[in-house]
């Protein structure tokens, strides 16, 4: 089911293919690792360490340290919440998409985000937490979602900037997670990354089209890039020196690269792609550093990031209010479906 990417070739962009190659490589590595033998380990903890050491996957019923379990539940759940809340900024433009084609694409993309949320909730559930608990944690604000979705989508060009920058940053973050040591998470990420690639390309295409349109359209595209650039950089989290969960996560092979390494990779990617778009990144300090073989760039405002995470971003309250409302509005559907299923079961039993 993971094989084949039906949309490859439909949206051709100068980049993106190498990310898909990395996903394919991660998938191959997952198969290769399964063929490897794990070192001896009589004690359960020793066996866990040996599995991690051999780059094999931990599976749901394997013994695992309690912190591995709870840390993964937190990470996967927050990732799932982000996908669910992430539907809102784009849903804002479905009814105002400029053409039927763009509308169909945007609908498919938002539906994908819902799907990604569900894959991830299912992966989290394999760790022994149930869905309703996770939903409550989000609705009660006790678990977070990505700060990026607390920024507003002010113009159609924002659909392009979100696809190119936000989904692009998400992919750079997520491709290494395809190699994560927890099997269900790694497998969900492989599926997600393959789908994300369409998201990024459709965004790039929107910006590319606008950048070649009228002056006003080009200005709209540039404005969207200007507003989304730094919040996208902040998606990689606090700088390495202040990252709280990193060391243990790296030792357990949940996390493979540091926040700053991934951020740098993203900057290098975008610097090249913005040239192709004919748009500029809003950073006067952005320049190639031949010694490092990377671009120098201005760091995002980490105080702003902390503020938005704490709840004081431009749209935090609105996003949470919408989610709670949607959840309440759907209550009768959930109840009706459960009642119908119970009635049907009763009828089947009475016919036996």
């Amino acid at each position: 089911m993971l094989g084949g990417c039906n949309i490859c070739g439909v949206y051709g962009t100068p980049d993106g293919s190498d990310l898909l190659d990395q996903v394919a490589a991660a998938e191959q590595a997952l198969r290769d690792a399964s063929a490897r033998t794990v070192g001896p380990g009589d004690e359960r903890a020793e066996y866990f360490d040996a599995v991690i050491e051999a780059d094999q996957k931990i599976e749901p019923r394997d013994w695992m340290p309690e912190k591995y379990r709870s840390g993964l539940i937190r990470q996967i759940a927050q990732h799932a919440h982000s996908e669910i809340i992430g539907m809102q900024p784009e849903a804002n433009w479905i009814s105002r998409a400029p053409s039927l084609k763009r509308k169909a694409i945007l609908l498919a993309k938002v539906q994908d985000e819902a799907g990604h949320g569900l894959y991830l909730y299912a992966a989290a559930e394999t760790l022994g937490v149930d869905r309703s608990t996770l939903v409550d944690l989000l609705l009660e604000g006790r678990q977070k979602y990505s700060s990026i979705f607390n920024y507003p989508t002010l113009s159609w060009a924002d659909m392009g900037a979100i696809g190119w920058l936000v989904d692009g940053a998400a992919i750079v973050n997520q491709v290494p997670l395809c190699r994560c040591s927890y099997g269900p998470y790694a497998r969900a990420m492989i599926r997600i990354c393959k789908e994300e690639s369409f998201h990024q390309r459709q965004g790039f295409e929107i910006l590319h089209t606008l950048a070649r349109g009228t002056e006003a359209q080009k200005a709209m595209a540039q404005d969207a890039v200007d507003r989304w650039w730094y919040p996208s950089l902040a998606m990689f989290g606090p700088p390495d020196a202040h990252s709280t969960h990193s060391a243990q996560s790296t030792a357990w092979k949940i996390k493979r690269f540091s926040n700053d390494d991934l951020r740098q990779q993203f900057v290098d990617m975008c610097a090249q792609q913005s040239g192709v778009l004919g748009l500029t990144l809003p950073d006067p300090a952005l320049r190639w550093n031949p010694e490092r073989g990377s671009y120098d760039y201005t760091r995002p405002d980490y105080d702003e990031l902390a503020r938005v995470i704490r709840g004081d971003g431009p749209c935090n309250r609105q996003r949470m209010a919408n989610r709670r409302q949607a959840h309440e509005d759907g209550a009768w559907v959930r109840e009706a479906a459960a009642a119908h299923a119970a009635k049907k079961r009763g009828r089947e039993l009475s016919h036996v």
Partner: protein
Amino acid sequence: MSEGWPLWEVFIRARRGLSHTHAGSLHAPDAELALRNARDLYTRRQEGVSIWVVPATAITASSPDEKDAFFDPAADKVYRHPTFYQVPDGAAHL
């Protein structure tokens, strides 16, 4: 929320001729909706030609902790593999 909606495991046959493979899980009130939800969730890009949904509670799994004792009996029966046998030169089609 999906309280009261049981968990279903989803298996998908990617193409005719291949076996069903575990794809993931989902919540649904009954088998019919589980099947529809599975179609929407796991085959948005034509990833399958057939879907099974199984109530998660109906699956009995072997325990990873017992795996040595459980699978050991097969470990010392190398004679079950054709490579165990010496075939003299010249014996064709064997």
